[in-house]
């Protein structure tokens, strides 16, 4: 299966798809939250619509001496990073940007999240928000290197940083089968860079909402949408790099990608609710002493397989 680059006119369609996936993820999360609190799950399905209606009518909050420029860049940056991430992910046979360095591009975009979250915390000139920003960077120092090496594994196996080649290399066998450690680490990092689940200390209730302590109205909506969009974009990339992308029987390639992305996204949304929040300083030691060596061993195993296979 070869991937072709479509014209730039399709960019809005790609953006709409990403937003639809983010909305679905938010709906699912709402349903799970409703069920957890004893209400019928169907009540929570409308959560994205209800939140949008509520936040669009809410006034933005402007604290004293707030840095609105940097805060705005940060809040909008989450969604922008997610949109730029999916630009390189092939949707079946089509891709918006057939970059020869797609994997590195994805990595660069997830690093933009570092800046975006910290700036979101910096913007309002509020202690809790700034503490949240620092907590995110502390978390990022733990997840970023394992993520980089996890991303390296499929690229080494495919012998290319182009996502089309990564998909083509999985024709016979999905990468998740022989690089499970890299896949698990990648999924954890996706949850981490969408500031969710165990890695949500930056927006935790112990700091009164962390980076989002002062966010209200459209700012809060953008941040929430951006986080769900990052989770969705990460799932789409994971489905492409580890779950075979568009490969599969019977169904067309684009539908397979949607199915796999949806499955991975559902898994991550369900899983992140069930895990406790980890304190960033507690995360550092296991991340550097256990996860990083494990993912390096995974990379070694992949490299040996590639060399032996020739």
């Amino acid at each position, binding site marked *: 299966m070869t991937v072709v680059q479509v014209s730039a006119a399709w960019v809005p369609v790609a953006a709409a798809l990403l937003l639809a996936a983010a909305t679905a993820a938010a709906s699912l999360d709402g349903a799970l939250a409703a069920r957890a609190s004893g209400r019928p799950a169907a009540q929570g399905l409308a959560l994205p619509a209800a939140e949008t209606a509520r936040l669009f009518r809410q006034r933005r909050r402007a604290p004293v001496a707030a*840095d609105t*420029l*940097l805060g705005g*860049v940060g809040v909008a940056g989450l969604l922008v990073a997610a949109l730029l991430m999916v630009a390189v992910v092939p949707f079946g046979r089509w891709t918006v940007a057939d*970059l*020869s*360095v797609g994997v*590195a*591009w994805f*990595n*660069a975009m997830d*690093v*933009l999240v*570092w*800046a975006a979250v*910290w*700036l979101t915390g*910096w913007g309002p*000139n509020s202690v809790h928000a700034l503490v949240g920003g*620092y907590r995110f*960077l502390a978390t*990022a120092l733990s997840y*970023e290197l394992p993520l980089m090496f996890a991303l390296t594994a499929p690229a080494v196996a495919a012998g290319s*940083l182009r996502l089309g080649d990564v998909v083509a290399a999985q024709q016979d066998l999905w990468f998740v089968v022989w690089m499970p450690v890299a896949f698990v680490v990648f999924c954890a990092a996706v949850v981490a860079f969408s500031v969710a689940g165990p890695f949500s200390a930056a927006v935790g209730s112990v700091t009164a909402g962390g980076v989002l302590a002062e966010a209200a109205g459209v700012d809060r909506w953008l941040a929430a949408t951006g986080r769900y969009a990052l989770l969705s974009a990460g799932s789409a990339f994971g489905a492409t790099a580890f779950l075979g992308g568009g490969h599969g029987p019977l169904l067309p390639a684009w539908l397979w990608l949607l199915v796999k992305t949806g499955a991975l996204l559902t898994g991550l949304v369900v899983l992140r609710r069930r895990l406790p929040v980890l304190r960033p*300083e507690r995360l550092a030691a296991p991340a550097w002493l256990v996860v990083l060596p494990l993912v390096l061993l995974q990379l070694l195993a992949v490299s040996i397989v590639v060399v032996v296979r020739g």
Partner: protein
Amino acid sequence: MSVVSGIVFWVLAVVAIAAGVAVFRVDSMARATYALAASFVAVGLTLLLLDLQFLGVVTVLMMVMEMAVMAIYMIMFMGMNPALMPMSMVHGKRAALAVSIGTFGVLAAGALLVPWPTRRGAPAADLVESLGEAVMHSKMLVMMTVSPVLFATIVAALVLALPRSRYDRLGDDLRGPDRR
């Protein structure tokens, strides 16, 4: 160079220089740091125009990450928290102006006066791969030796700079606070 890439080049060039100027004109540490990041991102994207895709993307990656971390240190190490108070981003103005004008003059004169060599050979088909070959092929042994030494230096410097560090967290016997 097509018209579109010409426009893109000029936009990126103006953004890079304007953001670079902003680094010294703004009155906040955070703005200065992220103006520098914006300048580097524009430079990184300019590299994409030269078909140096890997270098361009890695420049964006490294510089954003670096500035995110640098903002912390700048704000942490500046006394009297200038991060939260307006402050000037320049000092030693006269000497700095003389040096920068002199440097600009020398570099600009070099760019204009030196006869540029004509291109020999053609770019490789796969630039990422040939870049990797050029950087790593014959120098692999050096890189393999240098990188652990560099890494050990960083770790050693951190250990020396932090007199307590893990002993603070885990107690004098390093067994952890729970097991004392």
